[in-house]
């Protein structure tokens, strides 16, 4: 599918991951295009979230996880010796399934990333906080109460705040792990609109359980089943003419 090598943001080759004795990912190969939304779908436990977390090395936090193979972001192997995970995670941000704002003010949540990366200028910070909140489509709702605790926001607002917090670090890639699964339909549609806008500037990889969501927001879709990447293609092809029987069974709701 790689029409042009330069369009590829992330390339994965023969990726295998074990949790202790459990073989969680088998020989995954995938090319993720820049400034596109790539959806990862599949039944629970199929390895899609595990795969997502290999892209910013969040699996490093799990002692029993062992990883083989190659993951390149912009042509650079992120599992190579000497790779700085701090730098990697600045470039590859992440949004979690459960919104997880810090128990700090709205402003401090957004400022957290830039601050740990050394930004001290107040005016610059103010501007960045505003820009990030605008990009996450939550500025109008919170602009008058930036010093209020982030925990006082609604679930959907908290998730958009978490997106703003990730954007403030100015990443190139956004990994989203079922970002709307805990939200009501209105909050969900806001997040989906947001994803649609964000893909102009960011490469987005999103794990979702929701088939309609994958169809609505993504350009490419990868179907995972039992730790293997079964099929990967343009979203419309996956949803209209899947090549594999397993993919078809899954998207038509015959299992999962």
């Amino acid at each position, binding site marked *: 599918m790689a029409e042009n090598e330069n369009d590829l943001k992330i390339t994965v080759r023969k990726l295998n991951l074990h949790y202790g004795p459990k073989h969680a990912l088998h020989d995954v190969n995938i090319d993720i295009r820049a400034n596109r939304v790539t959806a990862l779908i599949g039944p629970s436990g199929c390895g899609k979230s595990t795969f997502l977390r290999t892209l910013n090395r*969040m699996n490093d936090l799990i002692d029993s996880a062992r990883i083989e193979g190659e993951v390149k972001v912009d042509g650079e192997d992120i599992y190579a010796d000497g790779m700085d995970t*701090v730098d990697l*995670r600045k470039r590859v*941000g992440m949004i979690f399934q459960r919104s*997880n704002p*810090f128990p700090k003010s709205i402003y401090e949540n957004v400022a*957290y990333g830039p601050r*740990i990366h050394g930004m001290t200028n107040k005016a610059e910070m103010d501007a960045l906080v505003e820009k990030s909140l605008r990009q996450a489509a939550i500025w109008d709702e919170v602009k008058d109460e930036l010093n209020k605790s982030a925990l006082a926001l609604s679930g959907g607002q908290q998730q958009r705040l978490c997106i703003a917090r*990730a954007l403030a*670090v100015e990443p190139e890639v956004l990994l989203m792990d079922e970002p709307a699964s805990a939200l009501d339909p209105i909050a969900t549609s806001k997040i989906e609109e947001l994803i649609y806008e964000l893909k102009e500037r960011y490469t987005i990889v999103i794990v979702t359980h929701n088939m309609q969501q994958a169809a609505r927001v993504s350009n490419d879709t990868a179907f995972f089943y039992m730790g293997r990447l079964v099929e990967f293609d343009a979203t419309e092809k996956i949803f209209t003419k899947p090549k594999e029987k397993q993919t078809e069974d899954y998207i038509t709701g015959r299992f999962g």
Partner: protein
Amino acid sequence: MTRSKGLVGRLVVGFTGACAFLSVAAVVWIMATIIWGGHTHLTWAFISQVPSEGMTEGGVFPAIVGTFFLVVIMSLVGVPVGTITAIYLSEYVGRQSKMAQVIRFAVNTLAGIPAIVFGLFGLGFFVQFSGNSLDKIFYHGALHWAQPNILWASLTMALLTLPVVIVSVEEAIKTVPQDLREASLALGATRWQTIRKVVLPGSMGGILTGAILAVSRGAGEVAPILFTGAAYFLPQLPHRFTDQFMELGYHVFIMTTQSTDVEKTLPIQYATTLVLLLLTFTLNFSAIALRARIRRRRVAA
């Protein structure tokens, strides 16, 4: 719960109830005796004056100040060391790792060592070994550090109260949600930044609780300071690390065993005990209240 009806059943209920009532009775009895005996003597003069006339008159001011310095120095050493240990245990080695188990076993063992053994250890390690070494290196063997003083007593006490701090802080660190650590790391924070900006602020209540519990434990123990720094009678206050000091618990012990006039000492002794109890109770209750607040917050989160 089913109610037992037979005679045996009633006897069992009565007997278990009586046993349970024992602790209530003990607390009430102790408190009543001490308040009854001491309240008339507990005046501002008593708190602010120096003991006089062979401890048959005067107050307990030096013992209060000595106790205060003791627990402050002890906390300044014990709380950071305990907190850092708890951080190491829960953030760096993994809670279930071999290393964590070994350290936790050591901490539990430390908690089980009788206080008098800490006193002897303090005498051997701090007063004699450390003190002699310091004197040899800095004073050509002249006696400065190789004798009981408030620093050695505080360090001995810090060691005794270390398990209390470690356990409280570890418990508090556990209440910081893993989600928040991941959020921080995913933003490119290092582990240490995550600990400093997310884990520690989230554990502040636990660190405070640990400190208060340690202080309350330390203020109540006498055995560790017997040979390491407490003075029998010392009207002037300690103002150097090498000074000895008076302490409330030790003062009670001295008045009980060394009084020259039992009749005259008795009310002072009651009042001193009352001061000591009020101090430790206040500290314990504030620790319990703090911990309850933290628990509530955990449930709410």
